[in-house]
């Protein structure tokens, strides 16, 4: 890949929330790049910081409670240091966002067409009629059969899948270079999920946008992602091309994630689960391997003191050294 293909570069990003007058990093030193035409999946349990990472990119956090440090480079600009007005020029027009819950993500009092049109008013010079035409085009593009009628409807009159299509139409309305999809299929049923994923893939082929896909659904990752970043407790713990990570997962956390997928032909009727929980933000050990507490059967010396990302295969990075000694606990308390 050439350097010019990189459209977003995040360097050592720290996003901290203020809790009782202290700041705690929810995203703790994340660096990654997104290339044109690429789908980068960010995977992890709830609370691992993946959604925080997404909202940090376009500055959609509550500024009174959040502190963002580091660099998010888009086209020579550092998004972290931009003010609201400059960010608004980028939001929607250069970076589009797709949200998880399609019902609550649409304004219940506004017609669908008007909600799609809103971004066009501020980011394009189209006249009112041209915008109306564009709205219908967009609705068609996201696979809605009768765009004229849907444009005049209110969100509650549409099905879940239709609403998510509308959300996608909003996100792509100004042909952004980057799409951030925060769990776009989580709230949908399985057949609709597949349709929405197909739609995202088709749109990407049309526009060549880079997509950051945030999900905890490994099935979705296998289907659409090019590259996968696995996050745990605010850090990236493994990063690899999708084939590589599915064939040779290294980090104990990644392996545990794969291990916990229910197997159709498994003889066991118990689910494999990862012991314990993601530590909460306020009592997260900040030094040493953050996953160590959940694999207590691995000896302490296997972990690095200050775990770094190591390139173990081309483009395959793993944090810490504990993966070398990791084995699943067969002791029965899993």
């Amino acid at each position, binding site marked *: 890949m050439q350097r010019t293909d990189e459209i977003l570069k995040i360097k050592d990003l720290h996003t901290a929330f203020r809790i009782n007058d202290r700041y705690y990093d929810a995203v703790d030193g994340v660096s990654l790049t997104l290339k044109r035409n690429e789908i980068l999946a960010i995977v992890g349990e709830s609370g691992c910081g993946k959604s925080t990472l997404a909202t940090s990119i376009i500055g959609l956090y509550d500024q009174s409670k959040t502190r963002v440090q580091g660099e998010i480079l888009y086209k020579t600009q550092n998004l972290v240091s931009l003010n609201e007005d400059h960010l608004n020029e980028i939001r*929607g027009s250069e970076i589009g966002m797709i949200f998880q819950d399609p019902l*609550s*993500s649409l*304004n*219940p009092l506004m017609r669908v067409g008007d909600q799609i049109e809103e971004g066009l008013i501020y980011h394009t010079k189209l006249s009112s009629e041209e915008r109306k035409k564009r709205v219908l085009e967009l609705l068609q593009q996201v696979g809605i059969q009768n765009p004229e009628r849907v444009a005049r409807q209110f969100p509650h009159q549409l099905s879940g899948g239709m609403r998510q299509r509308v959300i996608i139409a909003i996100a792509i309305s100004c042909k952004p270079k980057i799409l951030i999809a925060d769990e776009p299929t989580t709230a949908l049923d399985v057949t609709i999920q597949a349709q929405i994923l197909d739609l995202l893939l088709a749109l990407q082929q049309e526009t060549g946008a880079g997509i950051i896909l945030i999900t905890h659904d490994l099935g979705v990752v296998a289907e659409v992602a090019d590259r996968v970043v696995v996050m745990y407790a605010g850090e990236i713990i493994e990063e690899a091309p999708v084939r590589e990570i599915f064939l040779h997962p290294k980090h104990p956390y990644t392996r545990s994630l794969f291990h916990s997928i229910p197997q159709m032909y498994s003889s066991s009727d118990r689910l494999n689960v990862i012991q314990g929980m993601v530590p909460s933000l306020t009592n997260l050990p900040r030094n040493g391997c953050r996953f160590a507490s959940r694999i207590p059967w691995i000896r302490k010396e296997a972990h690095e003191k200050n775990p770094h990302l190591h390139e173990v295969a081309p483009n395959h990075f793993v944090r810490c050294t504990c993966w070398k000694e990791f084995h699943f606990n067969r002791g029965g308390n899993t």
Partner: protein
Amino acid sequence: MWKIIVRRFILMIPQLFVLSLLVFFLAKFMPGDPFTGLITPQTDPARLEELSEKAGLNDPWPVQYVRWIGNALQGEFGISYTFKRDVAELIGERALNTFWLSLLSVILLYTIAIPLGILAGRYHNSRLDKTIILYSFITYAIPTFVLSLLFLYLFGYKLEWFPTSGSVDIEYSSGTIQYYWSKLHHILLPTITYAILGTTGIIQFLRSEIIDAKAMDYVRTARSKGIPIKKVYTKHIFRNSLLPIAAFLGFTITGLLGGSIFIETIFGYPGMGQLFISSIASRDYSVITALVMLYGFLTLLGSLLSDIIMSIVDPRIRIE
């Protein structure tokens, strides 16, 4: 929609019927009768009996009820014993007084409360917000009669800026400019008092609605479109936050005729509230029953109006 409105009106008939029975019996069971006040040591009991007989008070209750409700349906509520006037006429006059007072109060109330609520919600936790909250708690904590009396004493007696009772100076005849100015002058002080005391609910309601709305997913979507934050507020947050206020609007509109007992009594303003309380004190049955029936009807009408308003402003609620 029209069908529904007609059906709701038809549904009001049984409700009003039950209310009329209640009102009728409450009035019946109240101790004393309209002639109690006439009794003196010289009164001949036979004379009282004769009066009762003439007034139909000795008839069986269903006969009395039917006679009363029959007359009421024709707009005939009888004669007020205290004022010796036709009840419908009396109430009409008082309702008009109350209507102007309430209308002005409600307009003033909303002009104060809505901007303050919006500001407090938008700049949540700022110094401005805290000042507004302090103001609204203070006005909430002051009892109506305390502030009324304070204003009356200060602006009425001490500074003499405003008249202290009545609804118009008697020297002006109806229709002249001085007459209307005098009316407005009489209304102002009670209006201001009423408006100041009523703001708390709306401010607090609106403020918390806005704070809630700010965290909504659709607001995040709106922000992700890159539209100016001002537009996010006007087009997304405020519109959704004003819904609960709109839900009360029907009651507020019909409430315009209800009047405030405290305010009208203290400011000596001849309105509905004052009429109600004085008619109870003087056992003026025909006025009491007419007023209670009217209030009942207004409440039912208010809830219908609120439903209609909600169906207009919120697309999720359709009367079908």
